[in-house]
Each structure stands twice: as structure tokens, then as C-alpha cells.
């Protein structure tokens, strides 16, 4: 299965890339997606996570074709 991973704002700059694609043997958690996509970098405490453009928590299951995004606290408005 393949998973699209996106990073935004300061996180994108720190990691040096805005998106990547993972291939995995089967369903995994959002936390596992982070680890695999960042070479096991430590996850910042305030990071926000979205699965298919909806907020989720780190233990949510990710399936084939899903899009997972990680980003810092939002500052719009």
C-alpha cells in the first residue's frame, strides 16, 4: 500500500521537504507514518495531524491511498 505524507510551514522547513510517499506492507498508525517518513525523528509535542484532511490523533489507523499531514499550531485569521 502507498500513503501520501505532507508537512507544512515550519515543520516543512525543518524536515526539508513538503511531501513524500510511503510504501508499507499493511495498515499502520499515524504515529508510525511519522516515524517512517522522518527517519524516526522525534515528534514535536504540539504537532497537529490530519488524515484525509480531517484532524486525527496519533493512534488513528492509516490505510492504502490515504493522505496524512503533519503541521505546527495554526496561525491564520
Amino acid at each position: 500500500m502507498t500513503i501520501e505524507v505532507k508537512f507544512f510551514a515550519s515543520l516543512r522547513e525543518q524536515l526539508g521537504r513538503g511531501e513524500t510517499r510511503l510504501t508499507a506492507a499493511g495498515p499502520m498508525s499515524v504515529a508510525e507514518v511519522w516515524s517512517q517518513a522522518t527517519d524516526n525523528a522525534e515528534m514535536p509535542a504540539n504537532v497537529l495531524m490530519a488524515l484525509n484532511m480531517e484532524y486525527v490523533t496519533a493512534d488513528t489507523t492509516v490505510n492504502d491511498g490515504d493522505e496524512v499531514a503533519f503541521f505546527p499550531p495554526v496561525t491564520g485569521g
Partner: protein
Amino acid sequence: MHSEIREQPFEPYAELLKYQQAMHAAGRYGATAVFVGSMREFNEDETVTAMELEHYPGMTEKYLHNLGEQAAARWDLINSLILHRVGRVKPDDAIVLVAVWSTHRKDAFEASRYLMEELKSRAPFWKKEQTSEGQRWVENNTAGY
């Protein structure tokens, strides 16, 4: 209930009037509550000359759409409008416009504030400021309550 991302500067009150006329609800609403967030030329004691507003294309639109629907489910609204700027923003530019039309003022006041607080705390936008000291990501929004 309408929301939109704008990549170019917009004049909030002209947009509001245009939308209001297209609503064809004249004489039905008694209350309109509007909020405009504009770019200030200073922040935390530093002069800000420009700002880059990044967003998560797709999720922002989805988030703002759902937010409008949530407000309409919770209050008695005739209509609502959310416009949000992205891209390169200059001081005095409008960043966000929220407008709510209702029969009575309670609904418009409460819904407009709700929309802004939710948008500020959850909509996937990020500001990077250009100051005399260089660029910096804004780390947190100021509290609304």
C-alpha cells in the same frame, strides 16, 4: 453558507456588499455581524513589512465549509460568508472576512465570534512574517477569550 480562499488582495466591505446583494434576502435579516482581520505593520514590538500566508490546499476549503455548516446547525442563520487570504500579504491588507446574517442579533454576534475563534484555532493556515530582523514563523495566535 459560503467560504473561499483568496490568493489576491480583496476589499472586504465590497465583497460583503456583493455577496449580500446576491443573497436576495433584503428585509429578511435584521442583524449582520462582521469581523475583518487585517495585517498590522508591527507584531511583538517589531515592524513587519510583509507576510507569507501558507495553507493546506484542500483541507482549508473543507475545514471552512464544514465550519459554516456547523454554525448554521447551532444558530438560526440566514447566511454566512468566510473569505481568507493566502500568499504574500502586505500591511493593511485584509486577511480574513467573516460575515453572518440572521433575524435577531444574538445569533449573528455569537456565530461570527464562533467562526473566528474556530478558524483561528483550527483552520490550517500559517503566517511567516518578514521583519527587519529577517523571516520568522508566527508561533501562536493571541487568545480570543
